[in-house]
């Protein structure tokens, strides 16, 4: 849909405001699985979403990754799921310093 064609009280919109989204406060940290996390997790949500989660078991992370694939449609290949779950389990207990949060 072309926003410029939506009429508001009979008048066309003649100007559009722009706004800057805030930068993501965190990035996935180096380790086996970082690339997979960057490729698939960031399609829908920030890395911050992972680093703020409560501590989960690796089994729980496996089920969360499966939920992202099966319920939310994440296109992660089946052979990457265990690698990602292991990576997220490892990252889950990492406390990032302020420079890592804002590289």
């Amino acid at each position: 849909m072309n926003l410029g064609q939506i009429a508001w009280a009979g008048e066309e919109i003649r100007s559009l405001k722009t706004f800057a989204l805030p930068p993501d406060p965190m990035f996935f940290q180096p380790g086996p699985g970082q690339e997979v996390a960057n490729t698939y997790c960031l399609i829908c949500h920030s890395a911050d979403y992972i680093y703020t989660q409560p501590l989960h078991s690796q089994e729980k992370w496996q089920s969360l990754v499966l939920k992202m694939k099966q319920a939310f449609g994440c296109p992660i290949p089946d052979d990457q799921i265990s690698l990602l779950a292991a990576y997220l389990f490892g990252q889950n207990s990492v406390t990032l310093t302020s420079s890592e949060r804002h590289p």
Partner: protein
Amino acid sequence: METLQKDFEPVDIAAVCQCSGNSRGFSEPRVAGGQWGHGAMGNAIWTGVRLRDLLEKAGLEQDARRIRFDGLDRPVADTTPDFLKSLSLNDAFGDHVLVAYAMNGEPLPILNGFPLRLVVPGWYATYWVKMLHDLEVLNEEDHTFWMDPAYRIPDNACGCLQPGEKPRHTVPISTMPVRSFITNISNGASISGGPTLVKGIAFDQGYGIDQVLFSLDGGTHWEATTLGKDYGDFSFRLWEIRVFLRPGHQYQLQTLAINRIGESQQLHARWNPDGYLRNAVETVHITTEG
């Protein structure tokens, strides 16, 4: 848009829009999901047309059971479920449910759902579908993803479970239990003592706020606050109280709101696996200088 504005009666309502998981980050034990503080909510004056006026104009068949809402937004992948929500016919015909085109007297900002959004006063924000463009009449129950299994609570009186327990039966989340907050003093703050004005907000699902009680000592003693202007039963209700704070002390500030049918906030937070429905009394710990 012109037809909506010219052919239907415009209605204004002040109403709170709050995320189902607002304050989830305070769940104890903690739960998975977006770790919200208390800020996933807002209050505004919404202007639009009654959903029921639109439905009456359109005309419904005898077997209509639910109205399902779709917005212009599309999922990020083809395999991701489209965001659809629905209301029972009874709820959809509620007096206050609007298809809104304005917020605080101006066209909806894009982030708030321009050009049209559903406004369901008293209900959690998951129903307030943005960029609304499609009303679908269903003659059956709705088991699409965002109604089932997403956004559901345990099917019991408190919508709660013992920590770690899994729900056997669930129902879609709906209305918001009564809450209140202190808004001018932050948790952990160090402030100067003496005469102090404490201010805040309270709201519920639309019965309206009857009173807000205030405590300096973590709930041992309570006193009444003064309520501010009444913008309607679905709105934030401002409250304030003047207290004297001695220097060099620690205080545990709390508020307890009670609505007009006598429902009050919980003294101890309920627990459920998604961190929904939080309405516990919150504590603001402060220290006075000197």
